[in-house]
């Protein structure tokens, strides 16, 4: 396998890791998988691409607006949909699942209606730059993506250790009822978790669509990949989603390389079934000493 493929493993892995980090935050705060995060990332990327290509906006402004929209979508999903439906149905898993799938579908169609249904090509953030490491060349966009991934993960890690809301989020994640009994603002923390997840996947969508392009249907596949990355990594630590993302990216690059492109979907299915059957909580599990 050529060294250049490893660059793409790192790049895709960082992207999957960021989406999985979004899943992780919502999972800690609200105990469910927000599949709509994939389409939020898509919406963020597509908004920025459209603003730059069709309206002539500068990159920085378009990117900030795209990320902000992803966060707003995440907050609206929680406030207007997940919370009322949870309250009505008593917090069952199936109604929330249906609700987020409906959001996924609606956001996808909204993007298709607003921005058109064709692929928007990516535009690198650092077009002139590339890093020559001797055995491999890393392009500018990959550098930005890796740097942003490290910054995001470090930021979330610090936030969950040092800040008030981050610490409450960890408490809620490990035992919701106890946290509620202790008088912690569980609802507000949930909202913060949703918003933060929206910001993270919004950024991820920006950076990845600048490299690979984005269309209104990209979010569906991204949602599944991020979910799988989290399943592989587990929720034992903030860094687990990144490990899962890199492993998934490695599998997605190696399997087609050695076994042909059609085998990819079989391999992904096999990995998923294996993990669900053998290690449903992922590779990195938080162990509590008793």
């Amino acid at each position, binding site marked *: 396998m050529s060294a250049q493929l490893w660059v793409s493993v790192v790049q895709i892995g960082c992207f999957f890791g960021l989406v999985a980090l979004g899943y992780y935050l919502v999972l800690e705060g609200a105990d469910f998988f927000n599949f709509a995060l994939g389409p939020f990332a898509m919406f963020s990327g597509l908004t920025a691409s459209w603003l730059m290509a069709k309206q002539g906006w500068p990159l920085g402004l378009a990117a900030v607006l795209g990320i902000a929209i992803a966060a707003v979508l995440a907050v609206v999903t929680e406030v207007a949909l997940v919370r009322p439906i949870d309250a009505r149905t008593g917090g069952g898993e199936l109604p929330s699942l249906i609700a987020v799938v*409906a959001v996924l579908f*609606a956001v996808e169609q909204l993007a298709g209606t607003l921005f058109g249904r064709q692929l928007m090509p990516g535009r690198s953030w650092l077009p002139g730059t590339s890093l020559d490491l001797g055995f491999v060349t890393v392009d500018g966009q990959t550098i930005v993506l890796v740097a942003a991934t490290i910054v995001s993960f470090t930021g979330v890690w610090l936030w969950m250790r040092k800040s008030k809301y981050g610490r409450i989020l960890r408490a809620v994640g490990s035992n919701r009822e106890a946290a509620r009994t202790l008088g912690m603002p569980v609802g507000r923390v949930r909202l913060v978790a949703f918003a933060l997840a929206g910001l993270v996947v919004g950024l991820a969508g920006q950076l990845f669509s600048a490299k690979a392009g984005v269309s209104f249907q990209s979010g569906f596949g991204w949602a599944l990949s991020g979910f799988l990355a989290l399943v592989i990594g587990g929720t034992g630590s903030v860094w687990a989603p990144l490990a899962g993302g890199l492993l998934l990216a490695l599998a997605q690059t190696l399997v087609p390389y050695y076994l042909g492109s059609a085998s990819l979907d079989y391999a992904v299915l096999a990995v998923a079934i294996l993990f669900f059957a053998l290690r449903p909580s992922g590779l990195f599990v938080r162990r509590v000493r008793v």
Partner: protein
Amino acid sequence: MSALPLQKAVGSVRSAESARILGTLVLTVAVIGWAGADLFRQDLALLGATYALLALGMYMPFNLAGALSLAYSAYVAIGGYSVGLVATKTGWPLPVAYLLGALASAALAVVLGFATRRLSGFYLAAVTLLFGMAFQSFLLDAKDVTGGAVGIGSIRPLTFFGSELDRQTFIALTLLIVWIVGVAVDRVRRSPFGVALQSSRDVPAAVEAAGVGVPALRLTVLGAGAAIASLGGGLFTTANQTIGPDTFTLHLVMLAIFMPLLGGQGSAWGAVLGAVLVVELTFNLQIFERSGSLIFGVAVLAVLLIAPGGIIGYAGQGARWLRGAATRTRGARR
């Protein structure tokens, strides 16, 4: 003394049941008449019938038993490819293909259901979705069987006692089959089996304790649902005389989850109504930039928030309220 009101109650249930059956039959015949010889309307009716069979297939496992399996695009495709293969590679009559497709997809659904029997909710949804994706790449990959990206074309039409059925008659027949399946599924919902199924969603432990095996119950309806969905794929393929990997995409499954929600989960006819609305919104009504799907998505969200009973549930509430209001006025006059 107390037997009389009971009898009356049973009588009224029976008449409501027959009213429902007759009413839906009248509607079905009306749709057949509306489609007529118009080719575009025939296409819409055919698509609606296929969607309705898909939604009816998902109704028992998903809406009644609460198991969200998303592999249905594969089952519909199996029904379609079964028709394609039987028509091009054998001389067997086409109804054999419907049977084979139904058996194959039911068997696959049972195997997949068994492999995922410990999963629920998000995990089940994800694995079955991945299965659907893997099946789609299988359709593209296994060129010898499925014809790869091209698919299978020039499928012969259905013959009936030696004479070929024209498209109009065949679509009328398809709509009648939808009606029959709708009646059957709605009766299953009201049968003791259906009650056990719905209880297994809400209180599985109690159903187990009553001596009904919940896993076997689930596998049964997963298989039956897959068979119904594959029948839809088979009929669609027969009418269009071609099938390819793009005929039934993963996207279809998402539509199928929402059809019963929009129409109303309280009755199997909600699934059919939802299918009709989806076809109307996404194909017939094109206001602006193919925004029908967006309207559909927003409508689903609105139904989830405001009217969890769906349209039929809402209409039923309205009818009960009207009837109540009428009784109240009569009572006041007396």
